[in-house]
């Protein structure tokens, strides 16, 4: 006799994780290495500024909104910040997640309490719903939104919701909900290299390229 819920959890912890890890790591390296190997056309002009410094600076400055943009699109900017911060806190400071990171990398840090984690997760979920609403309510944004965007939105919100349900045992079997939470995270890992989620890795490269190009021309970026 077996417990199908625990069997599913064990599949998520073994085969499921191995598949997701292989696709995520392999996919990320494939795309990053391909971008680096493709390289950029050599600029033979004499540089008017410092491309490296400007490139590095741009990685950080582009994390701040441009002047007037928060007022222009408040939900997009505030919601975007809240989602990213909420997701990061919930992922990086829950004890169970730190145990996973320690197992993977050997690194560890102090855990946050459950109240903070749950608040962060709830804020991230609300932010995602608000962001979806702006995409849906604005005709231009709705037209620009593709299947890929909704897929990424769904894959981003699922681990937050299922994690909250699993920790608080809101409904269903606790072991089953834990398994579903892990599987939702693994779905995110599988989609990561092939969707816009990849920006979590390539944002630094893209910003550096943009910044260094402008820096070479002696312009701000």
């Amino acid at each position, binding site marked *: *006799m*077996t*417990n199908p819920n*625990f*069997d599913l*959890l*064990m599949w998520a*912890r*073994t*085969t499921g*994780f*191995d598949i997701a*890890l*292989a*696709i995520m*790591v*392999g*996919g*990320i*390296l*494939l*795309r*990053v*290495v*391909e*971008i*680096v*190997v*493709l*390289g950029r056309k050599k600029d033979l002009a004499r540089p008017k500024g410092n491309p490296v410094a400007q490139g590095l600076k741009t990685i950080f400055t582009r994390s701040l909104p441009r002047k007037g943009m928060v007022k222009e699109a408040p939900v997009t900017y505030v919601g975007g910040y809240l989602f990213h911060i909420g997701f990061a806190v919930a992922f990086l*400071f*829950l*004890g*169970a*997640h730190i*145990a*996973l990171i320690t*197992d993977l990398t050997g690194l*560890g840090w*102090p*855990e*946050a*309490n*459950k*109240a903070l*984690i749950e608040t962060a997760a709830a804020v991230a979920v609300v932010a995602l719903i608000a962001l979806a609403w702006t995409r849906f309510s604005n005709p231009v944004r709705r037209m620009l939104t593709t299947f890929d965007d909704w897929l990424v939105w769904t894959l981003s919100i699922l681990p937050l919701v299922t994690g909250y349900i699993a920790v608080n*045992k809101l409904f269903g079997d*606790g*072991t089953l909900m*834990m398994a579903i939470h*892990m599987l939702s995270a693994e779905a995110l890992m599988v989609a990561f290299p092939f969707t816009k989620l990849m920006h979590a890795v390539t944002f630094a490269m893209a910003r550096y390229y943009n910044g260094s190009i402008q820096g070479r021309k002696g312009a701000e970026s």
Partner: protein
Amino acid sequence: MTERPLLPELLRANGISRRGFMKYCAALTSALALPPALAPKIAWALENAARPSVIWLSFQECTGCTESITRSAAPTIEDLIFNAVSLDYHHTLMAASGTAAEEARLAAMEANYGKYLLVVDGSIPVDNPAYSCIAGISNLEMLKETAAGAAAIVAVGTCAAFGGIPHANPNPTGAVAVGDIITDKPIINVPGCPPIPIVMTSVLAHYLTFGLPDLDELGRPKAFYGETIHDRCYRRPFYDKGLFAEGFDDEGARAGWCLYKLGCKGPTTKSVCATVKWNDGTSFPIQSGHPCLGCTEPNFWDNGGFYKPLSTPAGDYRRVGLAAAAAGAALGVAGGLMGRANKARAARAHEAVDAHDLEKKS
């Protein structure tokens, strides 16, 4: 064994007062999650039960379940209730041996056919019957023969309920649980390695008083296997605060913090260990500083390692990850080089055009 005195006489002989017995019945009622008003009914049933014949079969096991129920403390009311049934066959406890013992089993079966309670501890090897025999009879044959006349079966311990340690990978004897073989009788699974004594006696008391208890999808009494150990653990507040022991002798361990990171399976293990505890409510594994192993769940021996946290992968993922990284990098280099080659080819094939050419083509 059938000539033994009834429970009231046993209680008096062991110096246990009527008040003590009633308190115990109240505890049983509470443990079974029944209304307090039913405590006198349980007491009446235990005092006046017709002492059903019980046949206890031990197969591939370590006798820990018998040890648990008989040696929890001395003397215990659990032990007395255990004695109050007519235990007609238990090859660890009975005085008879060899042919006489087997004759006792057959006699009890014949005299109480269709009415006796069969208790089984230990798993049953099915790959080769010779792996475990009693008096030349294979476990499989003995189980089928004895179960045929049983009113109900209680599978005591994880080995009988789910296969337990003998069933663990690579399962050399082909060990299976009672429920994998017997499918036409009511089976109550009382898993644990070993189960808590009061859980075993409460199931017995429930059977004597009300018949079969409510069971979950794994055949376990809901009263004892309805909630996880994590839900009732006294260390739970530390989990919620994010305070974890990182080692068995670090500051967190000494301060009694949560053992999740040391591999505790409490969040996925259903049992009353954290509330009923062991040795008359003295302690349980987590209280003694060791993470829960999850022994009331199927396949607990193979569930990814006792000391790995539940949130960590249980497979050999590093090798998979390294192979994927190497393959991804190689494909990335190949993709990049192909892109560069395409670019160079396009540059070579490029033909300069001017306005006249465009006019000609249009």
